[in-house]
């Protein structure tokens, strides 16, 4: 009886949930047919259905599209990463696995499939002394948390799975769960290397969470909203008709972008911050006791996290799905989003191919002594930028000069300080 009453007295509560998860992919008039292609395709499938069913099916479709899209991206990314790494090391990379049972090689496009089959058919080993439940839950939780973050990303014009008022906060709240999953994996394996790696991962993730969160605060300050679509809206338009109003093209925005990307590297455990998986020290880190499909899930979650953070960087700093030049707007917005996403992902791979791994003390010191102060100073720079937004003429130049000095000055000073601690070394016995 009380339950019935509860739902009767609070009709809004039940509605709120549906309202806040605003119907995904709202159609908008005025866009080109190509631009509205996903929405048209969606409507073709679901327009005949009655209203509540339609909402559910629309949501389901959105989820499926996002999941499958990123799963395919993950598969391709593993191949592209290996090919790029190979090319950087002057070798062709995987190039033999093509269509099965044929001689077609297709530049190794069959490699992800082969890897998948291999992973699925491997034995799933659980150590006898492991905490069975947590050992099982860890990869599942990790993947779930990384997939959750995709919900608020604007993949194109009107292509947001869930329009949330506090979307960016949601993104990072969902991302916070990954640390927990890493810890669970390390602890449940009952392996000292796993546990050490988990502790390292926690230290690293906590250290870099701070600059990650601080780096996009200026963006929120300038855009005046926590919603992802709002941030993209704030980057609309072109200065002089050809310089887009992207945040990365301002002094504070550029600094924030760099800080964000460095922190994103660390957050997604990518080289050169892949200490938790440093195989020369910790075997495979928290993945040591995982095999087969669970290991594949970890791998997938790592790539999903990388994709999600890159997509967030695109949204926050690179204008989201907006075209760089006005006449390029005939290309659909989701293509632009994908292109920017690929560019950032390529950057991840490029960095992995270049830099050696950091030591744990260098890693945390870099976060606490360089990135966090830089992010805080950058916040001040953004405040200055926001206060002087109506300066014009020569004052505009002065605004740029002061903002650049505010970014470059601390960078040079702190960079000197940081590199002096490490720069040219003398070895006594070498």
């Amino acid at each position, binding site marked *: *009886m*009380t339950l019935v*009453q*509860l739902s009767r*007295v*609070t009709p809004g509560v039940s509605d709120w949930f549906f309202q806040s998860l605003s119907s995904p992919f709202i159609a908008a008039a005025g866009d080109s047919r190509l631009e509205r292609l996903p929405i048209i395709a969606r409507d073709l499938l679901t327009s005949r259905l009655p209203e509540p069913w339609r909402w559910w099916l629309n949501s389901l479709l959105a989820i499926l599209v996002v999941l499958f899209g990123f799963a395919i991206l993950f598969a391709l990314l593993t191949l592209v990463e290996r090919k790029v790494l190979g090319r950087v090391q002057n070798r062709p990379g995987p190039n033999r696995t093509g269509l099965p049972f044929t001689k077609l090689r297709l530049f190794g496009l069959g490699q992800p499939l082969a890897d998948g089959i291999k992973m699925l058919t491997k034995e799933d080993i659980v150590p006898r002394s492991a905490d069975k439940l947590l050992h099982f839950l860890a990869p599942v939780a990790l993947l779930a948390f990384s997939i959750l973050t995709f919900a608020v990303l604007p993949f194109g014009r009107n292509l947001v799975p869930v329009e949330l008022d506090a979307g960016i906060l949601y993104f990072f709240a969902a991302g916070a769960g990954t640390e927990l999953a890493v810890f669970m994996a390390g602890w449940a394996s009952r392996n000292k290397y796993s546990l050490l790696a988990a502790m390292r991962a926690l230290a690293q993730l906590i250290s870099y969470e701070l600059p990650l969160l601080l780096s996009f605060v200026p963006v929120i300050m300038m855009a005046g909203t926590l919603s992802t679509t709002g941030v993209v809206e704030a980057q609309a338009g072109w200065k002089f008709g050809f310089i887009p109003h992207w945040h990365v093209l301002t002094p504070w925005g550029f600094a924030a972008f760099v800080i964000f990307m460095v922190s994103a590297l660390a957050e997604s455990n990518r080289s050169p911050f892949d200490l938790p998986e440093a195989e020369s020290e910790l075997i495979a880190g928290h993945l040591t006791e995982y095999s087969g499909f669970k290991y594949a899930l970890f791998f997938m979650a790592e790539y999903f996290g990388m994709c999600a953070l890159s997509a967030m960087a695109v949204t926050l700093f690179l204008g989201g799905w907006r075209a760089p030049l006005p006449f390029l707007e005939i290309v659909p917005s989701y293509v632009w989003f994908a292109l920017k996403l690929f560019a950032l992902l390529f950057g991840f791979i490029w960095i992995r191919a270049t830099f050696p791994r950091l030591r744990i003390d260098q890693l945390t010191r870099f976060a606490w002594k360089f990135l966090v102060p830089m992010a805080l100073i950058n916040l001040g720079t953004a405040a200055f930028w926001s206060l002087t937004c109506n300066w014009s003429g020569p004052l505009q130049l002065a605004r740029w000069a002061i903002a650049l000095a505010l970014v470059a000055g601390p960078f040079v000073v702190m960079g000197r300080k940081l590199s002096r601690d490490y720069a040219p070394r003398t070895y006594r016995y070498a």
Partner: protein
Amino acid sequence: MSLSPLQLCLLFSSALFCVGLIGALARSNTILVLLGVELMLNAANINFIAFWRFGPAPSPATGVMFVVFSIAVAAAEAAVGLALVIAIYRHQKNIRLQEAVRLKG
């Protein structure tokens, strides 16, 4: 007897409060005592939200603001409390609360 949604939420929060209280009183492990206190704080936050949502609010955002501040304070409390746990452990090599009876370091 019929309960309004507000009452249901309050019952939920008081139950959570009591779970925290029992945990804090019954366990001798410092960390668990601290976590019990955290639970009690969370129960109080639930009350704020419940009153904000179902009660007559003086201003639309007061309850939410209160919880935001409360979460911040709770985070600070957790950080200091667990630092204290580490300090106690370093001092007496265990974290049993009964043995932490000395005031002198």
